[in-house]
């Protein structure tokens, strides 16, 4: 790890100001950034810690919406329970150490193609709030490790409309235990949404054919998305991942 400076602001505005400096990088729970720095694959000159900002923390429910502060840890979401499928997802991220440090905001800003939270946010039609704006889930995830966030823009909270029914099903990649494939289904005001993580080279995506079938009263039996564009590695072929998307979607709908 190379040397770096640390700044620990106590408000979002201070954090935004600190991030304006050359070579500055926000640090949320650090579950991706710190290992990357230890490998010398990233060498920010300054880390701006978000963990000291109270306004980024906490969970509140009102008007059929669950609002989670960006610096809320996975363990806190897991313990909340007001959105059971989301809490179950959080309870199965990584291991206890990861869940006690990692945050929902950090996970979404990183947008790892195998992370769990992006599937929940996209399927739930959640809104990602930042220091500048509110971004709809459909606009937030741009591609593998890419989001709609601008340079220096900080996620402040995520608003989940509480669905009628929802479930997350995943098969772990055996080594990392990230999602080899994870499927989150949620039935909200406008019907079912199906979001898939772990499978695609483009990161999280909505499986629209499955949504159409579900919302049109059709059957998911035998359905699977096209294997083109699916991740193909030592843990599973593209065909296997495409097959799993179908299996896990059916199981998620059954469990929701």
């Amino acid at each position, binding site marked *: 790890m190379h040397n770096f400076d640390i700044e620990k602001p106590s408000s979002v505005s201070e954090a935004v100001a600190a991030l304006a400096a050359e070579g500055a990088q926000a640090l949320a729970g650090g579950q991706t950034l710190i290992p990357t720095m230890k490998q010398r694959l990233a060498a920010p000159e300054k880390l701006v810690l978000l963990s000291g900002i109270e306004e980024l923390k906490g969970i509140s429910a009102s008007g059929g919406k669950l609002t989670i502060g960006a610096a809320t840890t996975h363990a806190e979401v897991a313990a909340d329970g007001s959105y059971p499928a989301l809490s179950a997802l959080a309870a199965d991220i990584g291991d206890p150490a990861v869940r006690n440090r990692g945050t929902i905001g950090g996970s979404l800003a990183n947008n790892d193609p195998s992370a769990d939270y992006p599937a929940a946010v996209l399927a739930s039609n959640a809104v990602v709030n930042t220091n500048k704006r509110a971004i709809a889930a459909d606009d937030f995830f741009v591609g593998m490790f890419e989001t709609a966030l601008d340079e220096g823009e900080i996620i402040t909270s995520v608003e989940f409309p509480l669905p009628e029914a929802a479930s997350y099903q995943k098969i772990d990649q055996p*080594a990392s235990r990230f999602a080899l494939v994870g499927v989150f289904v949620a039935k909200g005001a406008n019907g079912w949404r199906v979001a898939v993580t772990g499978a695609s080279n483009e990161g999280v995506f909505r499986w629209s054919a499955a949504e159409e079938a579900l919302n049109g009263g059709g059957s998911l039996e035998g359905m699977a998305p096209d294997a083109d564009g699916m991740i193909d590695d030592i*843990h599973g072929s593209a065909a*296997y991942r495409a097959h799993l998307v179908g299996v896990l979607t059916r199981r998620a709908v059954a469990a929701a």
Partner: protein
Amino acid sequence: MPADGGIGASTRRREDVRFLTGKGQYTDDINIRGQAYVHFLRSDIAHGKINNIDTSDAENMPGVIRIFTSKDFEGVGGVPCGWQVTDRFGQPMQEPKHPVLAEGKVRHVGEPIAAVVAETREQARDAAEAIIVDIEELPAVIDMKAALQDGATKVHDDLTGNLCFDWGFVEENREAVDEAIRNAAHVTTLELTNNRLVANPMEPRVAIGDYDAARDEHTLYTTSQNPHVIRLLMGAFVLGIPENKLRVIAPDVGGGFGTKIFHYQEEAFCTFAAKAVNRPVKWTSSRSEAFMSDAHGRDHVTKIELALDENGKFLAVRTDTYANMGAYLSTFAPSVPTWLHGTLMAGNYTTPLVYVNVKAVFTNTVPVDAYRGAGRPEATFQLERVIDKAARELGIDPIELRRRNFIQPDQYPYATPVALEYDTGNYPATMDKLVEIADIKGFAARKAESESRGKKRGLGIAHYIEACGIAPSNLVGQLGARAGLYESATVRVNPTGGLVVMTGSHSHGQGHETTFPQVVAEMIGIDAGMVEIVHGDTANTPMGMGTYGSRSIAVGGSAIVRATEKIIAKARKIAAHLLEASDEDIELKDGQFTVKGTDKSVAWGDVCLAAYVPHNYPLEDLEPGLEETAFYDPANFVYPAGAYACEVEVDPETGKVEIMSFCAADDFGNIINPMIVEGQVHGGLAQGIGQALLEHCVYDENGQLVSGSYMDYAMPRADDLPSFVTDTSCQTPCTHNPLGVKGCGEAGAIGAPPAVVNAVVDALADMGVTHIDMPLTPARVWSAIQAAK
């Protein structure tokens, strides 16, 4: 039995007090005043010609003391290989030089090219990044069969091709085996891969070189399973330092699993560099370095054929194996696919004819050497898989087919067609015990229940034997070992009766500090708490061969028994003098020497005091003091065996395998500490299940290590494993060592993989699946189901 636990007591591990309270002293815990740090610049390409190494910028970086390349090692030997295999045609294997730092070429990702010694670890790493290496990349040799084709790129330009050796065993049986297979009523054939593994001990390797210029003495602290072997190999073959000037210390070591047997370049480098810069030099491996520099395990590709008669009796076994050596020969690499593998191909069975062919191949990968079981898991996996396949083809129950071919209890000693003589065993008994503890009768009902939930359930059986307690020195000498394989012990009695046992064995998880005192205490009849164990330092232990091959209690324990017998013999003479009786009339019981048939006695402690304060002492006949050394060379291997049953549920839609139960009935002969033995079985099973379901070291076609971290290399975790059912009540004691013990350290890793794979294949047999190569990941299981459709 001693009040605090003798032979047979599940005494708690005394070493755990320091391990579990953070008070262990591991090599990385040692810091010597003035020490510098080394960072190795390692090759990031698999195969290339080094045109130039420019260190000029790096040398001027902050904190840099000196940068070393192969030029600094001219006149220094290569890291030696400790075993020479002779091929089918009577020729010695091809043996390339293994330089401390790459000479002219790099041959695997991770090979050290240069080494920076600096004031801090970070400075050394910074400077290493500033070294400019001009390498002309060459095609990587990865696939073993491709490596042996005409015109293949050579890993070593000065060798003839990439074949290290072509070994046949038993060569005289070759034609008879071919004939038996041609004429057999049934032949079952199976092609399989024994997956390449990375050992991953919890503690990565560490080395510290220290040089005392005033005394001209070298000390190496290292994470080793056998410090004397390191001293011998490094002193005599690499650096030319006589043993009296070289001390090797392996303090607490956090797991070895074989990969810490071997002598590595980093040890030689730190020892050499400490003198060159006149500073202690420390290296601590990162986990990433461990993946690309610790010797790997397994990596065999095999075709096995089993010939049977119309009654299912085994007639012959023929195997054809390609064994990956990696880029260089690690210390015991050639012995693993040959003598530790071919000799096990009779298994527990009366197969009269066996022929094993092994082609050992150089590739541009990390060297491959012994890993928990070493050759015996590879043998057992093939044999127990092909027997299972034969049972299915012939419609015979797999337990029954094994029973029909078991060596029977009245056949011992039993000479196999592959050179071993099994001294004892009772395989029908271990199989009976397994049938009982695994509730084999209840399997059909459990299977029906699983199927009602949409899951496929399978039962897998394996029966293993291993040859361990390695090994008779004269025998292994004939087979190519460049070392003896005895073990040593010095027992030193203190004046007030406490003892120190200095053993050549090395404990790195096995619990020697607990079990060895149980043996000595039992023999004398004193508390085990009066006995301390010293190991791991060449300066204060007799020349020992270390710990591997499940040899510590069978060989090291036997040396302790022999030394303790000498102590008791001398103490009896002293007691006879004190009691004014003759030696033959003295009995030792519960720490008291008594004149037979009288109430005259003297306590152990008083005899010991007399030895060191010899006022009333037969000085004209007996030296004062009470200290004895014994070297024990075993007459034979020991042959633990056992029956394993694994039950799995497979999700046919996802391919995910869940182990529902795992039962092990082992015969380890006599047992010193049942709790420690059970722990060894658990650990072995976990590693065996890890190999079967999870672990896989993968190189791509360019020689890049794809599974180079825990993000891609799957280790078994607690929730991957069931609660094991173990039983060690079947005991046929070893006939040739004084404790009647066999080894238990590798058993689980040997027997588990075939049991797991047999179970998964059983679960999927009705879908047409006949084999799946390890690891049985969900993706592979699903693919096998699709392929069988």
